């Protein structure tokens, strides 16, 4: 089994065995991700980061991951400063990045862009989020966080909360959690329910998710509460956003109903869905989760480029 040269567009591009290989390797890379140990595993390799859409954590953690592995980074975080402004196609932009680098990381607001990139690039392509579509590396770091904290995924009670319709992280995550045998509960406003494709994906993996609007009830047995922001930028109709914004809020009052060892995760950025008072509780795992993006992306880059630490 080798991941060298592989495109990672969707979490489905990886087998369960490959996912575990990445996660186990990521664990070993934590001291390197923190800068406590040094490596030159990817010396001379270049990563291009094509961020057609804004990002803080994903872009910075990919860049940090590449630097920590001894590689270099080129790219852009503002597409208005590129020839796309002149009407150049994404396909041609990809061909250029392909010529200048050994691996491409791409984020775009249109679904399917990373798959298109993989078609036009000879170098491996990693999807860093395509619109409301997929975000496989977020999924990997989420699995890594659950596995590190709970020691297992199978049989763990995971509640996914918030915008389950447009939230791209939850679609990949629900599939992957089902693949590993977690028990799933989906909590969202009626209008933001999990799409049927994702529910079918879970069922195909042998997991029958429960969908509800009642968070108080769902949180009682939860081991993991995965909160997502209701993303204003994904709503075609602002009136629809206004109807559901602020539908749920995780605060100390709600946590009175929760298990003592419940962990709360969030892909960030958060707005009002988690009260700041929760940050100081042992439940809050979201900042550690964000750090986990570095070792997980280091593991992926290292395995894809064949430069083992």
């Amino acid at each position, binding site marked *: 089994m080798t991941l060298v040269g592989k495109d990672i567009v*969707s979490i489905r591009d990886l087998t369960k065995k490959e996912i575990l290989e990445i996660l186990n390797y990521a664990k070993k890379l934590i001291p390197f991700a923190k800068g406590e140990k040094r490596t030159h595993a990817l010396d001379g390799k270049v990563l291009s980061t094509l961020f057609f859409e804004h990002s803080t954590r994903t872009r910075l953690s990919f860049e940090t991951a590449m630097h920590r592995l001894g590689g270099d980074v080129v790219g852009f975080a503002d597409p208005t400063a590129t020839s796309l402004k002149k009407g150049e*196609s*994404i*396909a041609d932009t990809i061909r250029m990045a392909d010529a200048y680098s050994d691996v491409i990381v791409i984020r775009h607001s*249109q*679904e*399917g862009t990373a*798959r298109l990139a993989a*078609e036009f690039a000879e170098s491996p392509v990693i999807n860093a989020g395509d619109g409301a579509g997929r975000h496989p590396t977020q999924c990997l770091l989420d699995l890594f966080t659950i596995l590190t904290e709970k020691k297992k995924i199978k049989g763990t009670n995971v509640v996914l909360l918030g915008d389950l319709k447009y939230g791209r992280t939850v679609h990949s995550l629900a599939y992957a959690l089902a693949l590993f045998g977690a028990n799933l509960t989906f909590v969202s406003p009626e209008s933001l329910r999990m799409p049927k*494709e994702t529910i079918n994906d879970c069922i195909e993996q042998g997991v029958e998710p429960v969908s509800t609007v009642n968070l108080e009830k769902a949180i009682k047995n939860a081991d993991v509460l995965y909160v997502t922001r209701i993303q204003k930028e994904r709503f075609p109709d602002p009136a629809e956003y206004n109807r559901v914004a602020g539908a749920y809020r995780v605060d100390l009052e709600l946590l009175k109903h929760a298990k003592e060892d419940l962990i709360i995760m969030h892909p960030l950025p958060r707005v009002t869905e988690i009260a700041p008072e929760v940050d100081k509780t042992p439940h809050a795992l979201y900042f550690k989760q964000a750090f986990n993006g570095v070792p997980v992306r280091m593991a992926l880059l290292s395995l894809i480029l064949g430069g083992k630490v």
Partner: protein
Amino acid sequence: MRKKELKIPLIKEGTVIDHITAGNAVKVLHILGIPERTKSVVSVAMNVKSKIGKKDIVKVENRELDPKEVNKIALIAPKATINIIRNYEVFKKYHVHIPDEIVGIVKCPNPTCVSNSKNEPIESRFLVVSKDPIRIKCYYCEREPDNIADNIL
């Protein structure tokens, strides 16, 4: 065979599409661009009794279907048979078959899918997830259309 075909007039040259799922004849006409893109005489029979239950039949005079049109029909009438008629006789008869991949035939229903972008050098592309019942998934964004017939290009 002859007796059944008499329900609607025999044709001298053209195509008979038989065993269309009852009720889907109108969708088949839409796929073939009838009446907008043809001057051919077209006969339609709906809810015709047959050994395997009710079916629809479409006869198009003076036009032989090409493979791309046949593949489109397969998507909405997977049990259809195509009879090419020459001089009142069945010259060729075949069953439609659903390919594993459908390129340039169905539009992705997701407006923000990159395959709907006019600026990119790609065609719409779907992978067939299941043939019976038919389910297809966009190669790019992985969305499944609820209604394939409504999204035929």
